[in-house]
């Protein structure tokens, strides 16, 4: 058989270079974005942890584990994910109830479920199961959704949100709530209803205020005037703003952030790690980090737009929007425009469970992307 060498070369190019990788359900651009962000995170974490290689290695190990989980999730076909959604949702809700009844109290809040060898935080599951359930629920009807559908959807969101808020974990409750709300928004809820809800929400703010814990109210009040109690409740915000502001345009340099290394900045490895980056790498570093997030979000949005069926669209869109909300709420808190709620900076803050959940979410997105274009069966 004689074939034109040029054609042969073209044929060669079509073949994937890495057969193993091409067999995995991985979206390369998205993975690239995630690894870029994780790389930045490691660099910042090394400084934030007081140059502890141990901490960085542990975080790296967690990231590996989370990536495995991501690939595992991505292997599941979106159709199967849709079918699993109601069950997962119910299991999540049940476990939340269990947590309230028999959960372990840690740092003043009841969030953990002790499963013998492994401690588990059910609210992490609901971060995924809630948007999945909502996507499943809304995908069954032609958009735009009727009012009674919306009512049902609202109940589906409120159940886990209230259970989590009761623990109390306001940050997670907000994230779970917004992931559900994102589905409703994408499903085409009319802007009239949205406006009505907004008015209703604003009207119920005083009621919401009454429901808040004392320390939660303090955090909101502190945001308005942190200087009122600089050594007490305003301390976090003030020290964080000092760290960011003193970083300036180009920062103090890697490992030279005084706010961090002299321990003025609280929780520098976890919730306030963005302030470390801002102090050591300045505005340029902050914009760089935002760019890394933008790459990931752009690829996610591409996947969302490419998605063929309703469930995939809703779920992928909701996960993308929620990822942005994570970033916005954490940064907004660190730079002092949002109250201090315990939301880590996704993929950058030190911590295991949240990373696993996040990458499982990206696994869903990859599943949606790859199963439309490739065959794995």
């Amino acid at each position, binding site marked *: 058989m004689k074939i034109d060498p040029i054609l042969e070369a073209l044929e060669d190019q079509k073949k994937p270079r890495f057969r193993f990788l091409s067999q995995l359900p991985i979206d390369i651009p998205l993975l690239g974005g995630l690894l870029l962000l994780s790389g930045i995170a490691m660099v910042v974490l090394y400084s934030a942890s007081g140059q502890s290689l141990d901490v960085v290695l542990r975080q790296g190990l967690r990231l590996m584990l989370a990536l495995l989980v991501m690939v595992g999730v991505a292997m599941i076909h979106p159709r199967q994910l849709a079918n699993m959604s109601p069950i997962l949702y119910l299991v999540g809700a049940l476990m939340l109830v269990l947590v309230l009844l028999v959960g372990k109290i840690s740092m003043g809040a009841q969030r953990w479920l002790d499963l013998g060898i492994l401690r588990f935080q059910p609210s992490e599951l609901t971060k995924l199961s809630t948007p999945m359930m909502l996507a499943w629920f809304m995908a069954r009807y032609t958009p735009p959704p009727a009012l009674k559908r919306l009512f049902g959807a609202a109940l589906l969101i409120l159940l886990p949100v209230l259970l989590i808020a009761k623990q109390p974990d306001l940050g997670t409750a907000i994230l779970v709530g917004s992931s559900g709300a994102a589905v409703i928004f994408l499903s085409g809820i009319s802007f009239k209803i949205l406006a009505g809800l907004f008015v209703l929400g604003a009207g119920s703010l005083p009621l919401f205020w009454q429901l808040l814990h004392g320390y939660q109210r303090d955090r909101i009040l502190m945001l308005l005037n942190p200087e009122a109690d600089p050594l007490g409740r305003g301390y976090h915000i003030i020290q964080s703003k000092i760290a960011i*502001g003193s*970083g*300036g345009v180009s920062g103090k340099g890697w490992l030279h952030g005084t706010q961090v290394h*002299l*321990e*003025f900045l609280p929780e520098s490895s976890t919730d306030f790690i963005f302030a470390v980056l801002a102090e050591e790498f300045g*505005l340029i570093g902050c914009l760089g980090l935002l760019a890394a997030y933008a790459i990931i979000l752009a690829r996610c949005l591409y996947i969302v737009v490419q998605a063929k069926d309703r469930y995939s669209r809703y779920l992928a869109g909701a996960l993308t929007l929620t990822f942005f909300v994570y970033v916005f709420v954490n940064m907004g808190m660190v730079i002092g425009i949002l109250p201090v709620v315990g939301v880590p900076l996704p993929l950058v803050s030190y911590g295991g469970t949240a990373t696993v959940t996040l990458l499982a979410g990206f696994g869903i997105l990859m599943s949606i992307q790859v199963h439309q274009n490739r065959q794995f069966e």
Partner: protein
Amino acid sequence: MKGDLTVEDSLRENRLFLNRIIASVSLMLLGVLVLVIRLIYLQIEGHQQYSSLSRENQVKISPITPTRGMILDRNGEPLADNYVTYSLEVVPEGIQDLKPLLEAISRLIHLTEAELQSFRDLMAKRKPFESVPVRLELSEEDLAKVAVKLPWLNGAEIRTRMMRRYPYRDLTAHVVGYIARINEKELSHLDPSEYLGTFFTGKNGLEKSYETVLHGRTGHQEYEANVKGRVVRELGKKPALDGANLYLSIDIGLQKVAMDALGDYRGAVVAIDPQTGDVLALASKPSYDPNPFIQGIDKKSYEALQGDEARPLYDRATRGAYPPGSTVKPFEALAGLELLGLPPLGRIACPGYYRLPGSKHKYRDWAHSGHGATDMHRAIVQSCDVYFYELASRLGIRRLHDFMQSRFGLGVPTGIDIAGEKGGLYPSEEWKKSRKRGDWSPGDTVIAGIGQGFVTATPIQMARATAILAHQGLDVEPRLVSRIRAGYDIEPPFPKNPNADRRLIEPGQWETVVSAMVDVIQKGTAHRIAAGLDYSIAGKTGTAQVFTVAQNQSYKSMRLTQSMRDHAWFIAFAPADNPKIAVAVIAENAGHGGTVAAPMARKVMDHYLHGLPHEN
């Protein structure tokens, strides 16, 4: 349901979803915009402010305390110096319960309840990482006991501190003063950066008036500290500049002679070098030991000192305002010579009393039978009151006041470099109107003529006036500190007036007054001290009334208690032809100036003049 969808429906749904995605992206972009604007606001707009806040966070400064300057007499004999003490201190960092430690310490060296209380007070006020003294001065025995057990006393340490001491105790107490712990009131006007590591400040005397130069300049050590205050690294160091040493013009030997001369009398002796204004001795009796004040004198001792009727804490030399009595007469004579011409009165007949024209009131002379025909010379030698009643009346209070104040500094502080000087009083019509709400009467002038009535003066004022007289009218500025020795540039707190040597009185009439003052010793009211004199003294006695004798009574018929007896004054300079020392002496309630005060002055002058190197 999928089967029911038409293509049109599907397109519509796609459009709707795409719209929502576009709306979402817009929202996200808006969110990013908010974040970026806020970051620009913090990192560009607020950069400087936050940078300085960050520096304040990180850089801690610890003071390096300078050693306080010494105070030495003119021959370098220390009147106030420092010595090293060993104090037992506790650094409470990391110790949860101090009680066992304090108990262990107390078993070694018994701690009093007062010491424990003061420790608790200091603990409450201390800054983090600051050590708190348990006992400031360990005796050698206690030092040995604690030093041996120190390894078992976790948190306790022995530190060295510089302590102040006044070796001449009561001899120099009023001159040198003392230092003691800074109190709340002083804290408000002391420069906080200079006093970061200083616990003491001058409360009195030279310790107070020269505080700025004695204290020195606090240095500092800059270091980076973490949020708990632990030192991470040293950034810089500025060494302390030790306080300046003050060399006084006082000679401790002469000071002792002056104090001893006063004997058991309450009073003061001031000696000045009229050529320079150097204060050679500044004695006030009774006195006190200033050493216990440094660490805080106990209440009982303090109350005893406060309540003592002899008022030992009161510096009579610079604060005691007494009626100067007849010691004003030489100055008044000069006023007459300058203002009324020579001779101002000529010879007057002294009948033993003086009457203002048209008045029945008799102003007595101390000599009841009178001095007979008296000219100025005789009036000074015999201290004739009538002559000076007459002279004062002729001059009038306005001219007298102006002359006494501007030429001899009566009624104004001398400006001596010591804290708390009083200015005495030379009255005027304006003064009486504003302070006494009364009009000046001619009788007020008459008694002012013999240094009584409203007139008061401090011993330092009289010494200065005498020095000006000795210096033939050249101004004299009394100073205790003659040299300030520091290893760096300092601003002396009491600079000499550049016009100091301006001539206050035109020379010319001095001979009359000075020769009369010499005769005061040779054949006048102070003739007792003339015996064995190998130099000439020009002097004037004064016997100042404390109690006013009523018109129809005589002084002797009064049963006078000790505190009503006259004050004895004596002013003098010597040698009369080449004055090297001017002295003012007052002995309270001691009676006659010539009898009591003059011999005291002679002792001082003898010691000083005999000690001087002989001139060829």
